[in-house]
């Protein structure tokens, strides 16, 4: 299992080399979106409204942070469970999203779309929300402010610790990692 330092925006070659179990320290600009924001973005695309940010080469982090304490960049900011975004993710891959950061299983449709569009799914440690917040150096709400914790934020991250859970070659660490340790 390799370890990579990656900086956004990502290109196909960055994603192509990643395999499940690899560690990634991610730096650069990423965007946050979860349930309500995904619904609004995809409904907008269907009506011809562009996304509120340039998604090409970027990664979307599924997170709804806690409120920011005065003096801090952001509140606690761990990943939310990904399957609720499964119906929307392939649409974002079609227009250039290169990765998703979250936790929990993805659907077969999402994994197939990841192979087709060369996209990586990176796992962050669920609940390690105070630790992850330390890697976020800048945070600006850029759209859907009315959604509160679900508003779209532009984040600048530095060495965010992640693990490749599903790669663009069909690998799924949740399946293979478990098989390795299951006692029948």
């Amino acid at each position: 299992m390799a370890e990579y330092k990656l900086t956004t925006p990502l290109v196909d070659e960055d994603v192509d080399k990643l395999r499940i179990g690899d560690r990634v320290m991610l730096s650069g600009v990423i965007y946050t979106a979860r349930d309500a924001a995904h619904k609004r973005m995809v409904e907008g695309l269907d009506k011809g409204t562009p996304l509120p940010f340039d998604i090409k080469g970027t990664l979307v982090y599924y997170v709804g942070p806690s409120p920011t304490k005065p003096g801090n960049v952001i509140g606690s900011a761990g990943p939310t469970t990904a399957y609720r975004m499964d119906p929307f993710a392939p649409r974002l891959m079609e227009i250039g999203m290169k990765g998703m950061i979250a936790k929990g299983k993805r659907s077969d449709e999402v994994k197939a779309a990841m192979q087709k569009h060369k996209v990586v799914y990176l796992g962050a440690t669920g609940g390690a929300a105070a630790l992850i917040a330390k890697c976020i150096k800048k945070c600006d709400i850029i759209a859907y402010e009315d959604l509160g914790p679900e508003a779209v934020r532009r984040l600048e991250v530095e060495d965010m610790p992640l693990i490749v859970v599903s790669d663009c070659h069909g690998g799924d660490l949740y399946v293979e990692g478990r098989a390795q340790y299951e006692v029948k």
Partner: protein
Amino acid sequence: MRTVNAKEVVDPLADMIKNASYRLGGDMLEAFDLALRKESSEAGKEVIRQLQENARIAREECVPYCQDTGFAVIFAEMGQDLHVEGNLTDAINEGVRKAYTEGYLRKSILNDPIQRKNTGDNTPSVIHYSIVPGDKLKLSFGAKGGGSENMSKQAMLKPADGLEGVKKFVVETVSTGAVNACPPLVVGVGIGGTFEMSCILSKKAAMRSPGSSNPDPFYADLEKELAESCNKLGVGPMGLGGNVTVLGVNIETYPCHLVALPVAVNINCHADRHGEIVL
């Protein structure tokens, strides 16, 4: 008859909730130490080390351990010789409101399951009242995260399914749900009672420390056996593969009807935040 004013619960409750949200309990930290010794997968060990570091940062900086600071679930045990002046339910919700607003905790509660508008202050809480002997008021709090709650299940088993049926249901629920519920988990199991009682028992069980045991040796042994079975599933910390899927399985029981065998499994994540106050 002792008398207290309902408003007296507001500040101590708010302080306890903030404290529980920032400082993971010593029982959970001990469970992490044990888990780190037991875990053999490298990815699993790394996850547990991150959880330990996360707990340290949250504690030292007074920020939430997890951004999902949960639904405030409260078991209120009211002594029958205590008289509360004023509206206790309102006072409990005021304590919750104060904690979530002043403590920079996330507000995750919606006014209606279909219309889905955020209430803005994390109220109302879910309160389970019971009357007990004595003249004290005990409020036990759990911050229940939504992701793990979604992986919980209830079944009305046939009496013929028996102990084996209960074991199978618990392990299957953990097997399918663990990966989405932020393992290592604390699993609460309620067996017996009626349909709704089994669920309330499972919640009580999920709020118990992972290192605690049912006072009945039969169920204490069953808790250990179920924890071992769950840990053979291979799910591991954060589902990356490993031998620590659960930190503990806790069981609470109640008598049941002769035609019934209700069983409920309430899944709690590693952010098992709980605390209590006594007035």
